[in-house]
């Protein structure tokens, strides 16, 4: 009997106009989003390669190490292949940071900076389609699953037979869910094929693992709305009422809770503005510059050229002292900047953490955060990348200072030393491992499973007592 109910549910759905419409729309949107994601990734890849090459060329063309130290090197963030599925914050945050001896590095030049219109509408990635469009379809498939049968009179006719209610609801859940998955799975499989066959797109084993986990969370997310639809359908006596309630819950989950969470977190845990931090950094930089200028003048006064000391020895001694003092000043600046950044970062993380945790009661937020983490396009990965640049900064500074001091020409007559980059330390960034990303997404998986169980149990119990008249 269960088989008959499941079969009927599937057949009834797939022969309906709404299924045909849903299937076509899903196929178009999913394939379009994955295709545009891939195209964007390829463009980003080309831009990245060009930017890296240009940076190298710029560094090599610097007339001196001093010019190089002041100009600094540019660190570009390589595009993420899974960003074609979940763009995350990648388009909103900066992609490149300048590391030089003076300033604290920060990421600039986001895609939204170059075209602010994108920030108004956001990216049309697969996460967006699942979060907004497919969740609406899940509601559309279930809002009348039970109450609709009551309105049609088929529920009475069904229950006038020897049909246990628990089996009927189970059949409706399985059959309905399979019907919902059909328009989703076929385009998803096709989009995977596109990823496989598209030239210059290569996914590692970990990437495939991440992709499968993303698809799993998509299914869980849709199951939340599917079971919610059944639950509300089993608690109402009119399909119009059921639809309105579901629409209200959907709007609350998808838009209101995430926005309110951010606002609430900013009220509860305010953080200083970026300008405030920059002003503090600049003030300290100026203070150090003045302080060390005095030290340099005093040094010159107290340590003039000794009798019998050759000009070259004096220059070498001074260069050595200058290198040490420069390192000391830079270390102080770096330490101050790092302390300010640590403090700011801690406050920011605390605020962001609160906003994320508050918004996580919405499955839409849980979906966003988990897919971003899995695609390595989330805030955490961005922070890790920035932290890696800040770790690199003193390494680069030390190298640049050393090179600069060793090649200082006091006579002003000789040619500046040619810039050689062979021994320049390179910035390294290890992407987060799959196990760490997975650990980060466990609360989201847990929340969705919890909601599915609660809504299914609610639908099940409600249907056992449902007034079929």
């Amino acid at each position, binding site marked *: *009997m269960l088989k*008959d109910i499941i079969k*009927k549910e599937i057949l*009834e759905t797939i022969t309906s106009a709404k299924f045909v419409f849903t299937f076509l729309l899903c196929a178009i949107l999913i394939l379009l989003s994955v295709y545009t994601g891939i195209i964007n990734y390829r463009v980003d890849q080309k831009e990245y390669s060009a930017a890296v090459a240009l940076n190298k060329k710029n560094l090599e063309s610097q007339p001196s190490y001093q010019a190089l130290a002041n100009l600094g090197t540019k660190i570009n963030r390589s595009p993420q292949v899974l960003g074609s599925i979940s763009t995350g914050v990648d388009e909103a945050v900066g992609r490149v940071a300048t590391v030089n001896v003076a300033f604290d590095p920060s990421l600039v030049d986001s895609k939204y900076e170059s075209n602010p219109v994108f920030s108004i509408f956001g990216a049309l990635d697969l996460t967006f389609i699942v979060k907004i469009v497919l969740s609406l379809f899940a509601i559309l498939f279930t809002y009348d699953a039970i109450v609709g049968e009551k309105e*049609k009179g088929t529920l009475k*006719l069904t229950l*006038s037979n*020897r*049909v246990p209610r628990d089996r009927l609801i189970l059949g409706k859940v399985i059959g309905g869910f399979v019907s919902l998955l059909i328009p989703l799975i076929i385009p998803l499989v096709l989009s995977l094929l596109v990823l496989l066959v598209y030239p210059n797109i290569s996914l590692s084993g970990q990437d495939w693992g991440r992709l499968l986990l993303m698809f799993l969370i998509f299914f869980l997310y849709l199951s939340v709305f599917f079971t919610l639809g059944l639950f509300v359908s089993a608690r109402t006596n009119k399909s119009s009422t059921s639809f309105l309630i579901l629409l209200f819950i959907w709007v609350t989950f998808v838009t209101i809770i995430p926005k309110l969470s951010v606002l609430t977190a900013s009220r509860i845990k305010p953080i200083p503005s970026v300008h405030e931090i920059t002003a503090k950094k600049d003030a300290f930089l100026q203070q150090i510059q003045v302080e060390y200028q005095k030290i340099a003048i005093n040094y010159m006064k107290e340590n003039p050229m000794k009798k019998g000391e050759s000009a070259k020895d004096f220059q070498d001694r001074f260069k050595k002292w200058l290198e040490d003092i420069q390192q000391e000043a830079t270390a102080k600046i770096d330490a101050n900047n790092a302390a300010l950044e640590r403090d700011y970062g801690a406050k920011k993380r605390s605020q962001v953490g609160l906003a994320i945790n508050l918004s996580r009661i919405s499955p839409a937020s849980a979906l966003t955060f988990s897919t971003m983490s899995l695609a390595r396009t989330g805030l955490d990965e961005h922070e890790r990348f920035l932290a890696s640049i800040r770790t690199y900064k003193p390494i680069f500074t030390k190298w640049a200072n050393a090179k600069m001091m060793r090649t200082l020409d006091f006579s002003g007559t000789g040619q500046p030393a040619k810039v050689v980059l062979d021994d320049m330390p390179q910035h390294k960034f290890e992407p987060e491992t799959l196990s760490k990303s997975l650990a980060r997404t466990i609360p989201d998986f847990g929340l969705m499973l919890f909601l599915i169980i609660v809504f299914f149990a609610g639908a099940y119990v409600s249907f056992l007592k449902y007034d079929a*008249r």
Partner: protein
Amino acid sequence: MLETINLTKRYEDGQLAVDHLNLKVEPGEIFCMFGANGAGKTTTINLLLNFIPPTEGTALVEGIDVTKEPLRSKDFISFVSENVTLYGNFTAFQNLDYFTKLAGKRGMTKADYAKALKSVGLQEEAFNIRTKNYSKGMRQKLGLAIAVIKDAPNILLDEPTSGLDPKSGQEFLKLLIQMRDQGKSVFMSTHDIFRAKLIADRVGFMKKGRLVMLKTRQELAGEDLTELYIQYMEERSESEPEYPK
């Protein structure tokens, strides 16, 4: 056989929908229940189908207490509602196949379904049309075909002839007579005095949940049923039931 013993239903809002109803519909009998809207006819059917629990009393189907053995009692009952809508995207065959399987009947062939559909007067060319394109009469016939193929000994019909054209109504009555002749107990709630008079072996009048009059075919002979209906609905005090206890 269908039987109610002191069957009573009081809703949560205090409304007394069925008040100590004692009734028996024997095999081979068509019983037509009249009453104004809200008199308790449909509630009686809902109680016999165990869609709602009784406040008091018992509803029996083939001697089975429907509240104690709800699933087993449904093996012995077929139900045809006022507005059979069925699954609109399914054809008559598909609807019939689904409900036949729910009724626990296995091994039915397309020929069996065609026979049942023909027996209720549905045209052969309509068998493979989606039922959302059916007229009300066609849907009622299909609803009856579902009852026919289930072949339960008791049939419950909730205002089945409302909205049917004269020809469809006439065909519908013929089918009910056939069912009665097969020995089935037929309980029909209706406002359709003219059609009921043609087929009813007994009629009952309900008012405010109480059975206020019960007459056999013989007792009705020569009486103007319409006049009787109006009279009982307007005048008969609910405290004076005119039927043997």
